[in-house]
């Protein structure tokens, strides 16, 4: 076996994994804090990717800079959706099922709106640095992947610090761990849930841009992305930010290594098979921990 190839695959795996982590963190939070399994999370990520694509085509705006536009936009959109579609079902008898079906409905709507606006053609984020490569000895780093990696690392770190350091973030964690107690201490659950949902969707938009750096995308792509989300949450543990980050990296490395040695179409199958095995053995996730 070729050592350079293995190291190279490890590196590209870590880069991919960081993007999975950013895409998955918000999904994990909504599930953990709100008990909502947000099926349209990946579709919002895809919307972020398409927004970046359009901003790049129209104004030549760099995909990472375009987050300055798309992230607030997605945050507001998510808050509106939370208020009118998610909040009413959090009181239902079966929140999980209700949330899965309602958000599946949202995913269908988003997918078809994207089909109408952007057509089913596969797209690529082609920037000035798309084909540029950084070469360090025998190893090489593609610039778009580096960009995606840095963006994702910063994104996950920001979410982590937000939860640990800010008052609102602490309230989110409190709401997750001790719902009743948090309410007694004056935590406004509705407001906290709305912020959590908004943040999650906004971070999905950024994660979607990261995915667009890695792969071509079209309006149906969110279905496959969704399985990656489940992987991140199940491996990392529901509601666990650090767990999600680690899970993303593990999945990325597994994907990276298997991509080097397996035909492409078998890689997804292997990863998803792994998901089922982990679910059966350890549904609570591989890592112990909290938000």
């Amino acid at each position, binding site marked *: 076996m070729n050592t350079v190839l293995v190291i190279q695959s490890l590196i590209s795996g870590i880069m991919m994994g960081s993007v999975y982590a950013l895409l998955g963190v918000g999904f994990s939070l909504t599930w953990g804090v709100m008990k909502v399994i947000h099926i349209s999370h990946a579709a919002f990520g895809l919307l972020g990717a398409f927004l970046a694509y359009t901003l790049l085509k129209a104004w030549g705006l760099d995909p990472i800079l375009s987050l300055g536009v798309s992230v607030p936009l997605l945050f507001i959109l998510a808050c509106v959706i939370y208020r009118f*579609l998610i909040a009413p079902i959090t009181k239902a008898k079966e929140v999980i099922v209700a949330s899965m079906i309602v958000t599946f409905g949202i995913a269908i709507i988003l997918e078809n709106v994207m089909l109408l606006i952007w057509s089913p053609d596969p797209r690529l984020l082609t920037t000035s640095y798309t084909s540029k490569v950084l070469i360090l000895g025998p190893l090489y780093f593609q610039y778009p992947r580096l960009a995606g990696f840095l963006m994702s690392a910063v994104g996950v770190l920001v979410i982590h610090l937000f939860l640990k350091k800010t008052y609102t973030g602490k309230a989110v964690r409190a709401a997750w761990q001790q719902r009743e107690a948090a309410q007694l201490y004056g935590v406004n659950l509705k407001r906290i849930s709305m912020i959590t949902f908004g943040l999650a969707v906004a971070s999905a938009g950024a994660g979607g841009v990261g995915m667009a750096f890695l792969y071509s995308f079209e309006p149906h792509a969110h279905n496959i992305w969704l399985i990656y989300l489940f992987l991140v949450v199940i491996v990392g543990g529901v509601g666990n930010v650090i767990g999600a980050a680690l899970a993303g990296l593990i999945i990325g490395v597994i994907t990276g290594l298997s991509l080097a040695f397996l035909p492409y179409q078998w890689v997804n199958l292997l990863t998803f098979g792994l998901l089922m095995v982990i679910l059966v053995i350890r549904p609570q996730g591989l890592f112990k921990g909290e938000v």
Partner: protein
Amino acid sequence: MDSIGKKSTGFLVVGLILVAALAVFPWLGPPVYFISLLFTVFLYVVLASSWNLIGGFAGYLSFGHVAFFGIGAYATGMMMKGLGLSPFWTILSSVPAGIIAALVAVIIGYPCLRLRGPYFAVITFCFAFVVDLGVKNLDILGGPEGLWLKSMDLPIHMIRSIMFEVMLVIMILTILLGVWISKSRFGAGLMAIKEDEEVAQTMAINAPKLKIQAFALSAFFPGMAGGIYAYYLTYIHPDIVFDVMISILIVLMALFGGGGTWLGPIIGAVVLTLVNEGLSTFVKAELARIIYGGLFIGVIIFMPNGIMEFFKRGHREETG
């Protein structure tokens, strides 16, 4: 007691008249479109009623039931191609196709049914994806090109009518099973599991065994229906027979009608299939799907406990 007896006799009479009317319908020379429409309705009644056995009665919400449908479709397709079956035997081959689907359900149910609540939903959801990807990657199953089947050498009206009758039979069998289970000890055991699995265990209910049995049964009929559907379409492709949309639709239909009763999924399947067909006939495909997505949301938000409960509640509010 007397009134219950009267009520079920009434149901029986209405049911028999309905079945007889449906059975003669295709031979009265209606346009093929209506035969196909009713075929689709029957198909979804089968899927939703079967799902209800594990989802509605036992409370184990399978979000990947399309897998069994697709497995049945491919099983029949492969049997027909591999063994060169005649039309008659192809239709009968949907029985072993159903058995294969049920066997798969037993194999994956054994580990998966230990998971509860959202985890069961997630693992079944992913299972359907895994099967879909697996089929796409296997060249002997036609891979991403799909599988063509030879149709019968008959006029289209005749073919559709035969398929219609076959699906009608499968639907009646599924409904009868649902009715029987809702009144049997087996069904009572499943409902006890839904209520509280630990308590059910202490009441000498063998929960793991009951769950596996219910799961296998709930996979058998979709497998059969898949086999018939494959022969009906004469073309199977993973994107058609493993479409996630079908999985979710089944859940929604059962919940829309009200899970946990045998009648609920039938109402849900009939109403939602007709709405879907109506939409895709009159509106552009994307727009139809957008409206349909909105319907998913609306159903859950406005009637979280199903349409039957919705009307009952409305009635109670009026009278009380």
